[in-house]
């Protein structure tokens, strides 16, 4: 009997040691500099609030941590869309002026691999900027660092919340350098095929409500037109 108890305590210790190694593993830290952050090209920066109650609408399966907004919005409870969130939000520029509207679909990704520090969400944006055109953004978002530095500390906190300053890029693909793929649909963006990056700036998180004070930023690189070389007279 004492051998069985010893084995069970050993098993629990082994699992706990592994989870601690996974949590504290510095190799899964994601504070890499994105190429979009240091590009010489023109940038479009679109800001929005990542707090559900600040969105025009936010909906999910209705049983998740973050409550749908407004309360009577249709919920995504059917099995094929149960692990999907939908959001519509107003997008603003750096002067907080409305520049357009964006709708985002986010689904838990089957490429999630916690061993490698990858908590992946597959998401797409459908964006319309009146007077400029429309954009489609495809990205893989990795929330591992967000989970490790905000969500888990909030759960450990006696007040069930987290407060601080956390800035991080959540885009991790599908671009080889961890950038989102951006396709222009109409207007001035027609034919555009470029990169993007979504980042979060968090100040407060609650275990009960989810994000309380988190701003998000979508940065899109707009390549400058290459001028045609003029022939030497």
């Amino acid at each position, binding site marked *: 009997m004492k051998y069985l108890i010893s084995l069970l305590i050993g098993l629990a210790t082994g699992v706990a040691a592994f989870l601690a190694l996974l949590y504290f593993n510095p190799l899964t830290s994601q504070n890499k500099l994105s190429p979009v952050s240091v590009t010489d090209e023109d940038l479009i920066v679109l800001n929005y609030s990542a707090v559900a109650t600040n969105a025009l609408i936010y909906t999910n399966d209705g049983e998740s941590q973050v409550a749908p907004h407004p309360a009577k919005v249709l919920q995504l409870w059917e099995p094929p869309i149960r692990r999907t969130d939908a959001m*519509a939000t107003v997008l603003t520029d750096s002067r907080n002026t409305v520049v357009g509207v964006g709708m985002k*679909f986010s689904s*838990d990704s089957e490429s*999630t691999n916690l061993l490698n520090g990858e908590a992946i969400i597959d998401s797409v944006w459908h964006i319309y900027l009146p007077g400029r055109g429309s954009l489609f953004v495809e990205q893989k978002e990795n929330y591992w660092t967000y989970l490790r530095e905000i969500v888990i500390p909030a759960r450990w906190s006696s007040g069930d919340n987290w407060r601080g300053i956390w800035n991080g890029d959540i885009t991790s693909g599908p671009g080889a350098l961890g950038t989102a793929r951006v396709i222009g649909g109409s207007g*001035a963006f027609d034919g555009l095929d470029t990169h993007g990056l979504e980042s979060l700036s968090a100040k407060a998180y609650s275990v009960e409500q989810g994000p309380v004070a988190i701003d998000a930023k979508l940065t899109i690189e707009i390549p400058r037109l290459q001028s045609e070389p003029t022939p030497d007279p």
Partner: protein
Amino acid sequence: MFKTFIAGILLGIVGAVAALYYLPAVNQFREQSLIVVHPNQGNTESFHVNVPMDRIMIGVPGQQEPLPAGLIWSGDDKLAGTRAELFKIRNGKDIVVGVASRIAASHEETGNIIEWVFHLPARGSVYVIMQPQPAEGGYRVGSLKTGTRDFAALHGRVTERWVADTSGSEDAPAGRIEIITAFVAELEDEE
């Protein structure tokens, strides 16, 4: 007993690694794809939106009865000519398989725009640009601009049309938006 404890630790570590490696953290629910092969006309897949029950949002300035109830749409002049909608989409068996967004906008600089994004969580997403003017028969025709995951290597066209309900049943929807996709893979050049 100490050796048993050490063996337990090793077994615990190996078990946790194996569990994370072999058990999928996410397994999206899949519905069967219902693709129809037509004689000499390629293949199509039909989706539809039952209106009003599958409509999640209508984003238009100045709505008397906003959908969903409680929606406060932006009154900014910038969005004056913009109509943004969110839907659930169903397959040919009337089962919800995804969500979709539709933008219809009119602006003097960009002209008229009608676009869809269909998001099927287990398969990927498609971005479709529709022609603003409807074709004969009440259809509007569009083309696949780009796709993700299962749709990444495809190209083709999409049609949409409004089909009013004629059943007269009390529980029946007012009608449905019928969406038919005809996608094929890119032909690769042979060496």
